[in-house]
Every structure is written in C-alpha cells, then in structure tokens.
C-alpha cells in the first residue's frame, strides 16, 4: 500500500478501429497525435497520464472541452478500458478485476456524478438514489431508509416521492450527488457536476459540496473546465491539454509557477490575492539586509506569516509606510516592500 486511494500510472487511451496497432506503434516509435491519426485513423484520447490522489483529498482535473478529462475520469471506474497503463484503487489493480469484482467496486467503492445528471426519468427521486443499492440486491426497506437519510444530507428532505422531471436543475444534481453518496463510497468521481447550472446555484452547490466533503472526507476526483471552480474546490489541480496532464500542483503552484505557456495563459486572468502566499514573493531577509542595512526596531514593522496571502499583505501595507516583515515563530525570514508586493500581485516577480 502506498497510501494513495486512486493511482494512475502511464494511462493511455487510443480510440479507433486500429487502436491496438496504434498503441503498439506509439510505444515503440513515439508518434505524435497527428501522426497516429494519419497512419491509423486513431484518436489519442489520453496521453500518458499519471497522478495519485490521497485519502480525503479533492483532486481537480481541469482542461478545455476535448482535452480528455472526462475520458480520463472514466478510466478510474473502468467505464473506459485503458489502452495502456495501470489504475489502482485502494492499492488494487482494477485492470485485473473480473466483471463481478468490477461491478462490486463500482457499486460500493466509487460513486459518480454526471454533468447531465443522467437520472432515470421513470423512477422517483428516492428510487433513483437507491438505484445502486437495488442493483446490489439490498431489500426495499433498508434501501429506502438509506435513500431518505441521504436525501437529508443533500437538503432535499421530503422530495423522495417526486419524479426527477418535477425538480429544478440544481435539485436534480443534488439527487445525482445523493445517488453517488448513497452507497457510502470511498471515492467520488464528479464529471463536471455543476457546469450545466447557473452561476448562483453553482456557487451554492460548490459550497455545500465543500462542507459535505469536509465532513465525510471522501476522496474526490473533480472534473471541471472552469479554473475558478478548480481553484475553489481542489486541494490539488491537474491541468490537461490534448489528452496530456501538463501540470499537477496546488492552485498556488500553478498560478505562481506555470509549467508552460499554455498553463500561463490559462492562469493569466486569475486574481492572485487569495492564492499566493507571502513566502512565495518575499525577499529573503539576508538579501534585504545586504541591500538596505540591518532591520532595526523590528516591533515597528508590520509583520505577517509566510503562509498569509497577498490580501493580508495588502491590508498591512496600506496601514504602514514600512515594508512588511515576514516571520515564522522563531525568526524573521523575509521582507515584502511595496514594489515586491505589486510585482507579486501582477505575477511578474520571481517568475
């Protein structure tokens, strides 16, 4: 056991009638996406993707439409078979699982939420939520109880007897979430769950999901095409482009040190106020003292912790003419003067 709940290692997915040949050619020759399409008529959906998600973490996969993120997430419960690579859930290789083991895994360990809800229109909300339990053969009495409890969790108490079509989009997606939670799975796969909702309801559901997640500590893989959402939801973010995971890191890592121009373009418009911490932009104390002489009378300077965000620094800085000292419990480690702060806000310093 490596301690990770979800692990993907070198996962490839090639679509097309001659996908097997194409995959072999890629592994031996290293063809580009265009070459594969030209020679084999095959489309590379996922290109050598590897990442791991630890327990209770929310891992966001972010990318534009067509970047392969939905394809990639369907590998985690093997709705799509990988062309190459291994996927381990709780340390177990799911590629080696037999059909019934796989069904058990899907039914008990992994819950999934879909962008278009994909509820069954002919079943009541309650029966929709209990669907997975019913498939496993749980009796009607117990599954109804579980479903009603889950309905409360997503604040839809009393809607159990309605048909999905009678509910609003936001409520339908709560039902989708409840369905995923009903079996109390270890892992949640969220495929752009809030993308089809209007902004207010989206924000609402995001907050609610974050609350739920904090309580239940479900390991979550969250797909989105919206960087703001990724930053809001994700403990870590993986950015996908053309089937490839181009960068993995915390929101701050990605904003302050984009791996390439594509990612840089992506994060260019993002407000750094709440994302970037003082530690990332400060001038080390040694260098500051070498330039300006020793800092004396440290009590007269405003001080902040290296983990404080730029928003805090701006607040401190506006109330004092002096630069802000960055100190840990033991010592002063750096200084942020107004120039450094402005560069940090703009994203031009240290880059």
């Amino acid at each position, binding site marked *: 056991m490596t301690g990770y709940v979800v692990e993907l290692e070198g996962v490839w997915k090639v679509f097309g009638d001659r996908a097997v040949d194409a995959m072999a050619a890629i592994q031996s020759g290293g063809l580009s996406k265009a070459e594969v399409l030209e020679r084999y008529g095959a489309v590379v959906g996922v290109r050598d993707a590897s990442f791991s998600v630890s327990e209770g973490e929310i891992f966001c996969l972010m990318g534009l439409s067509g970047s392969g993120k939905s394809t990639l997430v*369907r590998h985690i*419960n093997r*709705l799509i078979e990988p062309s190459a690579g291994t996927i381990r859930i709780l340390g177990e290789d799911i590629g080696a699982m037999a*059909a019934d083991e796989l*069904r*058990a*895994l*899907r*039914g*008990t360990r*992994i*819950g*999934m939420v*879909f962008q*278009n809800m*994909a*509820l*069954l*229109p*002919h*079943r009541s909300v309650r029966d929709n939520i209990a*669907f*997975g339990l*019913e*498939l*496993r053969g749980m009796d009607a009495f117990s599954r109804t109880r579980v479903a009603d409890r889950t309905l409360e969790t997503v604040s839809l108490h009393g809607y159990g007897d309605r*048909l999905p*079509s009678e509910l609003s989009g936001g409520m339908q997606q709560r039902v989708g979430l409840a*369905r995923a939670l009903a*079996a109390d799975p270890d892992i949640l*796969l969220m495929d752009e769950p809030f993308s089809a909702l209007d902004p207010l309801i989206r924000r609402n559901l995001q907050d609610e999901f974050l609350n739920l997640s904090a309580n239940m500590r479900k390991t979550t893989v969250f797909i989105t095409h919206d960087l703001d959402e990724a930053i809001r939801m994700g403990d870590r973010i993986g950015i996908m482009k053309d089937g490839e995971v181009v960068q993995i890191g915390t929101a701050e890592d990605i904003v302050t040190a984009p791996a390439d121009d594509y990612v840089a373009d992506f994060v260019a418009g993002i407000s750094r106020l709440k994302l970037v911490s003082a530690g990332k932009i400060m001038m080390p104390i040694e260098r500051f003292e070498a330039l300006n002489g020793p800092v004396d009378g440290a009590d007269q300077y405003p001080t902040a912790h290296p983990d404080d965000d730029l928003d805090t620094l701006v607040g401190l800085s506006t109330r004092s003419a002096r630069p802000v000292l960055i100190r840990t419990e033991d010592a002063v480690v750096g200084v942020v003067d107004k120039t450094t702060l402005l560069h940090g806000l703009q994203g031009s310093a240290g880059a």
Partner: protein
Amino acid sequence: MILTGSPNTVAEGRVSSIQAFVTSGVPYYVPTFERIEKNALPWWHVNPWALTVPWLWAGLRGVWLVFWIALAIDLLGIVCLMQVVKFSPLLAEAQANAAENVTLIDRYSKWIRNFGTAGAVLLVAGRLWVGGRADRWYYRQYSRWRIDQTIASGVDPRRLLLAGLIMLIVSPLTIYRATQLRLDGRACLNLIRAGEETDALLLRTGVADAASLIDGLQAEYDDLSDQFARLDAIRDRTSEQNSRRSELRKLLRDTGRDLETARTAVATGWREKFDCWFIDDFPTLARLVPPENVIYRRVPDEEAIASGRDGATKVVRTVKDPVEGRRVNIFTYSAESIDISINYLRASFAGIFDAMTNVLRQSLIRVEILFMQTPWPVISFLFLALAWHYTGRATTVFVGACLAFLAAFELWQVAMQTMALVVVSTALCILVGLPVGIWMAKNKWARWITEPVLDVMQTIPSLSYLVPAVAFFGISQPPAVLATVVFAMPPMIKLTALGILQVPESTKEAGLAFGASERQLLIKVELPMAIPSIMAGLNQTIMLALSMATISAFIGAEGLGAIVTAALGDAQAGKGLLAGIAIALVAMMIDRILKGIRMSFSRI
C-alpha cells in the same frame, strides 16, 4: 470613410469574377449579366447559341438544366414529326383503294396534320423559349458558382463529349422507335422459337447448315406431295392405301411446318432482330429447359405398417414426363423451382407444419371461446370500464357507440371472432417481436440483417405469401394468423429497437457506473425507458392486424373479414360496406383505449 474600395475596384472585381466563370465569350456575358442584375434584359433577348444548338451550348458550358430541357423539347418535337413519317406510307396504302378506306384515310390524314403541327410548334416555340431563358439560367448558375466553386464553370470540351454521348444514347433509338408501328406482342417470341426449332432440326437431321436443311426439307416435301397426289388420284382405294394416304397427309403437314419454321429462321433479317432486341420489350435473355417436374407426396408406408408401426407414412417422389422441347424463361424457371421446393418441404416436414397448425388452432380456439362465450354484457362492461379508467368521457361514449353498432347490426359474435384472431396474432407478435427488437438494438449485425427483412415483410403484398401459407398450412384459421403476424410484427420489432436505442448514452453509463450488469441495465434502465416506444409499436401492430382481417379471410379466417370477402364474391356492396365499417370501428375503439393506456405510461 467606412467603405473601403472604390467603385472602380468593385466593378473590376465583378468583371473578373464573371470572366473567371465564363472564360470565353466575356464581351457578351459581362454586359448581359449586368443587364440581368439590373432587371433590364428585354423580353425578346435571345442567346443565339442556345437558340441554334442548345444542347451543345449547354453541354460545353455545363448548364445541365438547359441541356436536359432542350433535349426533352427537341426530342418531343421530333417524335411528333416522326409520326408523319410513320403514318404517311399507311395513308398512301389506304389511298390506293380510296373508295373502301374513307374512314382510314380520314383518320390518318388527321393524325398526320395534328402531329405535324404539334411537332413544328414545339420545335420552334421550345427553341425560342430555351434561347430566351438560357442566359438567365446561366446567370443563376453563376450566382451559385460564386458560393460553391465546384459548380461547373467555363467551357470544357470533355463536357461537350459527355453531352454528345448522352444524346447518342437517348436520341437515335427514341427517334427510330417513333417511326415504327408497335410490334406484334408475340413476334419476337416466334422468332426465337423458330431459331430454336431450326437448331433442333439441324441437330436431328445432321445437316450442316440451314440452307441445305431447307433444300433437304423441300425435296422431302415435294417427294411426299408427289406420293400423296398419286394416292389421291386413285378412285377406289383399298383400306391399306387409305391409311397410307392419311399417314402421308400427316407427314406432309409436319414437314411443311418444319420447312416454314426453317424459312422463317433463315429469313429473319437484322432489322427484325434489332427491333426485337432494342426497341420493343426487354429481350428474353435465356430460354431454359424447365426444371424436372417432380411431385412429392406423403403416402401410408405399407412396409412399416406391416411391421407394426401404425400410421407410418413415407414421402413418394414421382417425376412427370417433360413436354418435348419446352423452353421457359428465367422467371418461369424460378417460379416452377420454388413450387417444387414448397412441395418438397410440405411433404417432408409435414409433422412440423401440422404441429404448428395445431398449436395455433388450439390457442385460437381457446381465445375465441373466451371472447365468444363470455356474455356480451360482461365484454361491453369491460371495454367501457377500460375506456372510462384510461381515457375521458368522450372516448367512453365513442366506445359505447361502437359496441352499440356491433350489437345493433348483429355483428357481435363475428366481431368477437375477429378480436380473437387479433389477440392471438398480437400475442405472437409480442412474443417474437420483443426479443428480436432487443437483439436488434443490442447487435449491429442483427440490425444489418433484420432491417431489410422487416422492410420486405411490410411491403411484400400479402396475397403473395398467402399462397405459400396455404400450401404449408392449408386453408383454415392458423395460416391466417401467421399471415397476420408477418404483416403486423415489423412495427413491434422496429419500435422496440428504436426505444432501446433512444435511451441516452449517459443514462446507460450512469447505470453501469453504479454497478449494473448488462442484464440489469436492460431490465431496470433500457426497457422501462423504452416503454412509450414499445407501446406505440404495440398499438401499430394491433391496427395492422385488424387491417389484415379481410385479406386473411381469403384463406379461411373467420370474423368480420369473412363477411367482406363473401360480399365481394357476391357483389353485395351493402353487406361489405357495413362489415368494413365494423372493422374500422373495432380498430378505432382499441386504438383509443390503447392510446389512453399509453398516455398513462408516458407521464414519466
């Protein structure tokens, strides 16, 4: 200045675009197109090339619309004029004996006059019209070409060649045909027969070619007629001489016919052959020796019965003597082969067919008893209750009226028979159609195979499979049920498949993601979501089954349809009409109730 580009460059762009389109004749087309755009083209404007050689002009420039219109008009005109050529010799012939042929002369001269005028008017007016429209059509093509550069533009000799080829295929034969009188329907067949028989004669006599065959036959004929004349001259013939004489007469007749045949075969010119091959009907491609006329019959097997197996039977195969020299075409050959195969299958697998007939008959009898022996107040009540529960008041009243019609015209029991037939057929349709529909939805190959079969089932005239149905199952209710099933099942299959295929991919994916097996997915997700579609299929199946009631009555189905067919036989319009209305009312009644039931499903 918001508008860039001066008027000059705009005009130049226009001219160069027209130039690129027409490539040759620019000085003519640029101002013409401009006048068309300005709506300033005079009504008498005519494109001289399109007026004189429209097909060549249109072919060269790729204005195919003009090409086909001009070709059609010209051909029609010429065909009219050719009637003059056709009837003139007939008129001359009739005028040779003017006194006797007054009506004929009158008729022919009228035809010649009318066709001649029509042809001339068509040619002149048609050409003028095409010539006048040509530039406008050409301009329209230019407008389309500006959007889509793949549309024909410029001049291209290859297109001219194509136009010539089309005219070569279409024109000469059509014009030649117009000059010829219609061939005698049997003329071509007689020519073929003469050829065949002459070949047979050559083979029999061992003579090398037709000319010497004719010589030989002539000599034989002369010899025979000499002998006959000599015998004929004798006044008092003995009985021996008399029999010799009649023998000679028969020989003489046969030889004379052979001689005639051979002469016809030799005299057949290229002209007759050409007419038979190209301008009349499609030629007979092959004349085949017909299939062996085999008859299979099932008879009691005496040997087996003797050895203790009661009621044992066996199939006896007898071959009828073929008719000497009979030749048939491919159609007849295949039809006879099919007959023989049906005969064989019927005799060999009698047990299976009888068993099927029995099962069908027994189930039909049970359902008939259910419908006919349940007292009419009970049935009426059930129908009305169904209508009341699932539909509104209006429909209930309508159902009541339909039932009253059946009762008032004393068609109740007969209608119940029809109902029984429909119920059994529909049950069979569901039993077979539902699984096949599911299979079709799940399997691409199944779809590929089933779809054409279903189309054939729906479109093949029911009368053409009633005959084999009778061959296999005899005349009675069971084959009627089968014929009804064949006709009524396709919508059941198609709409089941459609309903399953229409289930959104994402919903199926969700089912799988929560651990459904293929089977669970089908039962818990796909079939429930396909129910509205399946119900629509069921509804159509029932309607089609009812519409087969009359047709299947031809092979022994009882019920309302039988009254219609009987009325047809006796030319009793009133009876047939009333029974027909009863069928329609039964159909509408069931349809309305089913629609109500369907609506109660489709609330989801």
